[in-house]
């Protein structure tokens, strides 16, 4: 069963996003890397981990500082054929988020599945 799941998400590139959408450019620059890889025809999986899961909270604006928000980029993922979206289950419960309310309906992954996830991608980039 676990092997089936790994084969389901296996790809060229796993991008792990561990920063929220505000306060730094980590999330935006991580998403840029994912989009470029997808544009070059690579199969990309996105894993939202830790504070990174807050990127998926709906209704976020660009904020008073004028930085570009990340929500419009997230909405473009489908256009780039990035449909393998995962979210760390433990981070959701730690931050008190209900997974059903998130943008893009990501699939929950338990901590025990993470080693298998990194192992079934040729390249892992962490932001």
């Amino acid at each position, binding site marked *: 069963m676990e092997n089936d799941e790994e084969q389901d998400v296996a790809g*060229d*590139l796993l991008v792990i996003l561990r920063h929220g959408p505000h306060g730094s*450019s*980590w999330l935006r*620059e991580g998403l*840029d*890397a994912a989009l*470029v*890889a997808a*544009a*070059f025809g*690579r199969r990309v999986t996105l894993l939202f981990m830790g504070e990174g899961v807050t990127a998926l909270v709906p209704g976020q604006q660009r904020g008073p500082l004028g930085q570009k928000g990340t929500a419009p980029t997230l909405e473009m993922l489908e256009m780039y054929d990035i449909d393998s979206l995962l979210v760390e289950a433990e981070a959701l419960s730690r931050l008190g988020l209900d997974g059903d309310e998130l943008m893009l309906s990501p699939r929950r992954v338990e901590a025990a599945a993470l080693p298998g996830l990194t192992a079934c991608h*040729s*390249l892992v*980039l*962490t*932001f």
Partner: protein
Amino acid sequence: MRYGILLMGAPYSSQAAHSALRFARAVAGRGHRLEAVFFYHEGVHNAARLAAPPQDEPHLVDGWAALSADHGVPLQVCIAAALRRGLLDEREAARHGKQGHSVEPPFELTGLGQLVDLGLRCDRLVTFGP
């Protein structure tokens, strides 16, 4: 083995750049092939031509250039991350109507596609960040 380095830390702000340069020298010194160093996020500041650290500190920008000269390692800087942080080579400076440029060879401005290509081409891509 074929190695690649991804550096995302600015020089003199965190240990990342110092560690990455030492690791790069160790990789080359052990006879491995270092395919390229890719500078992304705040790591693009490592390409600042005008960096002038005190003389009793390691000069990281010159250190990368020396690594490239000694071992033929390409130094690839993400162009999108660089431009918005004021790091422009002569061509980009002219294109944006800026006086002077802040990036020069052996550093080269290039696209993120090069990072993906590097990561998939190497046996190991080692990331250094703050």
